[in-house]
């Protein structure tokens, strides 16, 4: 293909030759013809597209939001093709290059292997891919070029950012709900002392309280509080309305970050965690524990897209039969555009479940974007405050999470 430069040089050369004829200027004629000859000869230099093999080495296949990923791009010429090659590794539009470059220009020789490195950062969760690779072979003077797209793609996921929850917040504000292996206030296997009783055959000698034996003169054993893990249900609102705002500042993005943070914390404490994402339909990650399960939850959170307008009441009606009795539910929702919230909470509470709500305020984003005039915004704020007060009146905990604040601060409202 002709480059712009080739078109300009050829056009200029023709103009010089013709102008020379009109003005009878031999210098113009000869200069124009020399330039034309140069362009025509350069067209022979238009080299063959090299047959290349491309691979990438990355530091990780998955990163967290704002995490760095280093990419080593390796290209090997498998044939005899030779020439100036421009290589452009296509990146997701959200990616920011922090080091190096995803573009290179090189003079490729037969069987040569060349590599270049760059680091990138992605601020938004999701599933992305590097590539395809745009290759452009051109002559030395950038007059003619040949382009090809190499379908070499490297997929990776960006997980929501996980914050470290302050222990103090968990223990002081909601100690029993969120601390994982929790005492159930019944006698059983555990570490926390509950009471003393007389030794009966079958009791382990380990549980004998020797001090009590010395004091009372008969065998006494310690009874402990039974501890068990919880089944925690994380419920994420991914309806269309949760995309209010832009970039990282949307209720959905904040909810995903919060859900990832809680999932990590709860799984670290050996709880069973399930994730349900509702929007157009309900996507479910069943109860499980461990590192692998965290990976599944993070992957599901990365895939969450704002879609649909499923109401909370319908979701709860469908889901409650499958949720273990008494399991705490943590709802991540901006509580917008859902008139069924009160009924959903009433139904859920009446069945013996507790719902903790972490609610990122979408009004902050609207205010930031300056899309709502002051007066309607004020009314919307009052309505939201009323809604939160109503939920709190059920005895449930609601965290009014402001934009830009850490997840920890959402808990502090409890």
């Amino acid at each position, binding site marked *: *293909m002709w480059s712009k*430069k080739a078109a300009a*040089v050829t056009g*200029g050369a023709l*103009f*010089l*030759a013709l*102008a*020379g*004829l009109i*003005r*009878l*200027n*031999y*210098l*113009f*004629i*000869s*200069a*124009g*013809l*020399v*330039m*034309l*000859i*140069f362009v*025509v*000869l*350069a*067209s*022979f*230099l*238009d*080299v*063959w*597209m090299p047959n290349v093999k491309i691979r990438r080495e990355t530091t990780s296949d998955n990163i967290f939001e704002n995490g760095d990923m280093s990419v080593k791009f390796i290209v090997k010429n498998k044939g005899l093709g030779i020439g*100036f090659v421009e290589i452009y590794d296509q990146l997701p539009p959200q990616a920011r290059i*922090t*080091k*190096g*470059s995803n*573009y*290179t*220009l*090189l*003079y490729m020789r037969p069987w040569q292997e060349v590599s270049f490195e760059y680091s990138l950062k992605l601020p938004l969760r999701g599933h992305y891919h590097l590539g395809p690779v745009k290759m452009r072979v051109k*002559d*030395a*003077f*950038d007059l003619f070029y*040949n382009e*090809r*797209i*190499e*379908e070499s793609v490297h997929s990776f996921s960006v997980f929501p950012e996980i914050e470290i929850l302050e222990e103090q917040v968990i223990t002081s504000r909601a100690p029993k709900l969120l601390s994982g292996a929790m005492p159930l206030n019944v006698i059983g296997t555990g570490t926390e002392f509950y009471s003393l009783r007389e030794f009966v055959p079958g009791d382990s000698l380990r549980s004998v309280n020797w001090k009590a034996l010395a004091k009372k003169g008969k065998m006494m054993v310690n009874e402990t509080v039974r501890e068990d893990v919880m089944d925690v249900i994380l419920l994420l609102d991914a309806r269309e309305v949760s995309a209010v705002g832009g970039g990282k500042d949307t209720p959905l993005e904040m909810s995903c970050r919060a859900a990832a943070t809680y999932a990590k914390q709860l799984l670290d404490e050996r709880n069973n965690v399930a994730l349900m994402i509702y929007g157009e339909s309900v996507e479910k990650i069943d109860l499980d524990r461990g590192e692998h399960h965290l990976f599944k939850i993070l992957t599901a959170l990365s895939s969450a897209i704002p879609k649909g307008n499923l109401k909370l009441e319908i979701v709860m009606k469908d889901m409650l039969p499958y949720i273990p009795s008494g399991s705490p539910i943590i709802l991540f929702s901006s509580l917008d555009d859902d008139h069924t919230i009160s009924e959903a909470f009433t139904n859920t509470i009446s069945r013996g479940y507790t719902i903790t709500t972490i609610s990122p305020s979408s009004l902050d984003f609207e205010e930031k974007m300056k899309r709502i005039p002051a007066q309607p915004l004020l009314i919307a704020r009052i309505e939201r405050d009323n809604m939160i007060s109503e939920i709190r009146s059920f005895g449930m905990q609601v965290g009014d999470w402001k934009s830009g604040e850490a997840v920890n601060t959402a808990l502090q409202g409890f």
Partner: protein
Amino acid sequence: MEEKEVKESRLPQIKDIINYNDFFGEYPLIFAIKIISSLSLIFVITEFYNYHNPLDSLFTKYVKQLSDSSAGSEYFSSFKPDPNIFVLWSVVAGFIFYLFTLLKGKYKFFVLLLTIIFVGQYISDPALDWKLGEHIIPSKVGDEGAEKWTWKPIKILYEDKKESVERINEFTTRAATLIFGLIPFLGIYGIWKRKAWAVIGSIALAVIIGWTCNPNYCLENFDADYCGYDSKSKESTWDETLAGGIFVGLGFIIYIELSYAAIKYENYAEQFKPAGMDNSLLTDAQKKGVSKTLRTLFVSYLVNLGVMLFLTFTMAEIVINVNDYLSTTEGIIQDSVELQGPYGIVFTSLIFLMLLGFVRMFVGADYETEES
């Protein structure tokens, strides 16, 4: 232990005054490209004005006639553009202007101000003598004890108006030659400042100025003393002009290609810099890596350019000689086609180019239409 307070020097550091890094560049190779490109520009422009005498230009005719007939004729009386002078000075001026653009912030303003003041002072100095009164204004005058304040304005005495006129004359003459000097001025500025528009502008100006030139046109309007030649016999022969034109054409190609290469490779090196930072943040290994890549690219580029220039020169010589042979050899071609003339050389060249086009259909890479 008491910490010693380090006092900052009041003198500004040179890096705060001028961005000298831009001049030397991060890589010596690019600096070398700029020098070679500048030299080729000087060669091309010199050759260009050897063929296109500025005195034969329409610009000269109109500027001269306008100045001779206008009230300010005395200021233009010595207008006579001489390539031996203005090419060199325009190159220097273009380079100084580039250096001026490297100055930072207030220093740029101060230098501009000083330049204006110096030029004004240079022109006005002979004519103006600032004579002060006995008393600096305002002052008491009259008898002792008098309370009368009066103004004693500074007197401006016109001492040597002629010298000032000569200086204005010299200044305007030099400024007028900028019409022709703009080609090297813009070219040098474009090469060093990496401005493609300036390089393109210099080429466009060369075409425009060349267009306005007619051989011996000066003699039609002015006398031989002014024009510097008295007969039309100095016109070059057809062969000489064509042969000279090949070198000018090659010179233009070198100038265009090298200035383009300087911009291209500088931009290429630029991308390795961290955003908004300078090269100092790159490790030595990274700098060496970029230098090595640049060296490989540039050596390959130079080899390609050298081969291409040689082939172009050979091809152009062949075309001219074939044309010369056909046009001077008696036979059917000479009888039927008028080849010895500008149309003839263009005709022969186009035939050659057409043949090369046919060859290109069978030789060389073809374009791929599908993605791999």
